[in-house]
């Protein structure tokens, strides 16, 4: 065996540095420390998905695949959705934090100045995938450019117990609020009330109260941004809800967050609830655990419907999930590359299919996916985003002032105050209109 001396070792190690052409010999020869390429890491902050399998896809499928395809090391961090604004605020103010932050609803308008323009991806994805839904475009476009990229939409439908509704004479889901009230009254009398949160929470409360308001003809502002909430239409909707609450609802809903209705439904305490499909998905995944009183898997007794219509039509509000590439990011280029890669049909599909319809794509092409043929119960979610014609701050724009009203839960609190029985509907409407007025008249 040849003796390895210092000269031979240096020569060998130099030869071994194929490609880089930079062995120890090279380092020594250059009299300089080696320069390594900065790790191409992308840190993404998202919510703890109500479908945990989807987070698993990000960590166990996306991360290794994007590493292989683009050399990007994906660092997925998930937190409670209600805590994301706090993280976003501290990151933006300190100029340090995740490269991509998932933002709900119209938060992109709030943080627009901290965003990297992602118009190129949005245009590309929209063109290739049948167009981004109008509502999602409005939520993510500020000043003519895309400040965040729509990732998904969680449609809100009413999940209900088919057999219980049939027992009180409702063969199909009620078409109007009035019919829903009548059915709900019978259900509550049978100790199977409707469950609905009117709490200070981001999802199920406003996605119920805003469409209710609109379906009675009420609206926050007019097209010029003048507050018009204090109207006979709004009052009519609040009066209706107050009686509906008393007659048909589980009154504990005033203190519910976005998860209480899931638990109450799965335990058989409520008969219906406005929700994403997470109740059904949980019942499906836990078929052995969640049963009807007759012992059948609970998911076989669940159906979905869009929210009922009011005197002025039928409306919906679906929660939007968007990704913002942060301006302070030291790897904005990598973050954009990752988003481009993630939105490619073959990649996005892996995340989309495990959602089973709880979250749908931001573009129309996903309405035609084969997954929808597998489970007819999920059918109402397929095209649900098309039903969303209005956003917070209607009939004006879903901009910063609308976000402030939304984040103060003004519309939800208006209904909650009246339903609590402590405030008259007239006073609740006047209060909400007054508070909204202060927001819209502020400079």
């Amino acid at each position, binding site marked *: 065996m040849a003796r390895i001396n210092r000269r031979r070792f240096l020569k060998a190690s130099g030869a071994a540095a194929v490609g880089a052409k930079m062995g120890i010999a090279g380092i020594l020869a250059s009299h300089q420390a080696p320069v390594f390429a900065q790790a191409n890491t992308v840190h993404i902050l998202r919510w703890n998905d109500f479908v945990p399998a989807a987070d698993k896809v990000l960590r166990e499928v996306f991360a290794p695949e994007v590493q292989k395809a683009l050399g990007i090391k994906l660092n997925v961090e998930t937190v409670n959705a*209600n805590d994301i*604004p*706090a993280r*976003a*605020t501290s990151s*933006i*103010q300190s100029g340090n934090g995740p490269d991509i932050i998932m933002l709900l609803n119209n938060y992109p308008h*709030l*943080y*627009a*100045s*901290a965003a990297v323009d992602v118009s190129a991806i949005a245009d590309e994805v929209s063109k290739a995938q049948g167009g981004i839904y109008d509502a999602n475009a409005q939520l993510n476009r500020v000043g003519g450019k895309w400040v965040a990229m729509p990732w998904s939409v969680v449609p809100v439908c009413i999940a209900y117990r088919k057999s219980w509704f049939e027992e009180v004479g409702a063969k199909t889901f009620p078409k109007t609020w009035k019919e829903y009230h009548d059915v709900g009254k019978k259900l509550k009398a049978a100790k199977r009330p409707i469950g609905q949160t*009117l*709490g*200070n*929470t981001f999802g199920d409360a406003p996605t119920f109260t805003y469409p209710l308001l609109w379906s009675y003809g009420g609206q926050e502002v007019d097209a010029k941004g003048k507050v018009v909430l204090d109207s006979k239409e709004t009052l009519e909707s609040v009066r209706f809800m107050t009686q509906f609450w008393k007659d048909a609802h*589980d*009154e*504990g*809903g*005033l*203190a*519910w*967050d976005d998860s*209480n209705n899931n*638990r*109450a439904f799965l*335990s058989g*305490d409520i008969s219906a609830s406005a929700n994403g499909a997470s109740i059904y998905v949980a019942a499906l995944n836990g078929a052995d655990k969640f049963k009807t009183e007759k012992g059948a898997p609970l998911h076989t007794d669940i159906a979905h419907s869009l929210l009922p219509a009011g005197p002025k039509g039928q409306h919906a509000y679906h929660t939007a999930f968007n990704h913002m590439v942060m301006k302070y990011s030291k790897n904005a280029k990598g973050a954009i590359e990752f988003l481009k890669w993630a939105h490619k049909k073959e990649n996005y599909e892996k995340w989309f299919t495990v959602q089973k319809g709880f979250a749908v794509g931001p573009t129309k092409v996903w309405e035609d996916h084969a997954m929808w043929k597998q489970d007819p119960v999920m059918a109402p979610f397929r095209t649900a985003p098309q039903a969303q014609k209005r956003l917070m701050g209607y009939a004006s724009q879903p901009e*910063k002032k609308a*976000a*402030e009203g939304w*984040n*103060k*839960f003004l519309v939800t*609190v208006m209904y*909650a*105050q009246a339903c*609590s029985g*402590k*405030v008259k509907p007239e006073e609740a409407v006047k*209060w909400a209109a*007054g*508070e909204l007025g*202060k927001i819209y008249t*502020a400079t």
Partner: protein
Amino acid sequence: MNETLVVNGRRQRVSRLTRLLESEKALAAALLAPGVAILVIFIAYPFVMALWYSLTSIRVGEPGEFVGLANFTKAINDTIFQQAFKNTVFYTFWATIFKLALGMWLALLLNRHFRFKRIVRASMLLPFIIPTVLSAFAWRWMFDPTFSVMNWALYHAGVITDRLPFLSDGDWAMWCAVAVNTWRGMPFFAITLLAGLQTISPDLHEAAALDGANAWYRFWHVTWPLLLPVTLVVVVFSVIQTFSDFQLIYVLTGGGPANSTHLIATYAYQIGVGSGLLGEGAALSLFMFPVLFAVVWVQLRTLKRMDNA
């Protein structure tokens, strides 16, 4: 530059640093410097920044401009803030009263000799040791509108026929928050007051007993006056902590139902962080300052008077 010094007939070189440290003023300044630096960085700087923010229209990611007292005026006219302010005063007042009364009672009990005294004293601190977020979550489950274990127990014991609206009624929710705060803060009162009780000489109680004073008189005329300075300090600490409470309400009720349990801190967070209006959020939270300043001022004055008496 070094100088020479003659010690025991030997000439020694004395460094400038040694000379500096021999100066009492310089040494005091050196020893105080780390503490002052910490105070400046972690207390003075954030406070000054909050003050500046409150006078500007700063939003997340936007520097804003000077707006004078506009944020304060907006807050005063904001009915949710008015409610949050009233709630904060109510919450602080009742929680402090209960913590003081129950803490005192517990301290008097623990001051006695009984078996397993040390274990009981240590375990009593548990509510104080457990992170507030965790204990608030546990209480939230116990008060859950659908699955409350207390409703379940009361229902099965035949005490109630319908669920009690622990968190779904505004008044109930506020009293529940007061109860949880009392549960959490009472051990702090009890342990501190217990420490105070143990400094009171038993001779005083014996002398009073010999003079015919009953238990109440002994407490009122011997224990209470001697415990007053400690009590004042504990009450002030508690008022400061309770008035600026955030975690408990954030987890337990989120300020609901219908804003009926919002405190200044939770509402300031909702505006400053939730809506990105940092200037307005800072102004809202600064409303706590004059109240807490007044409380501390009264306490310091009272303590000074007691010292002089």
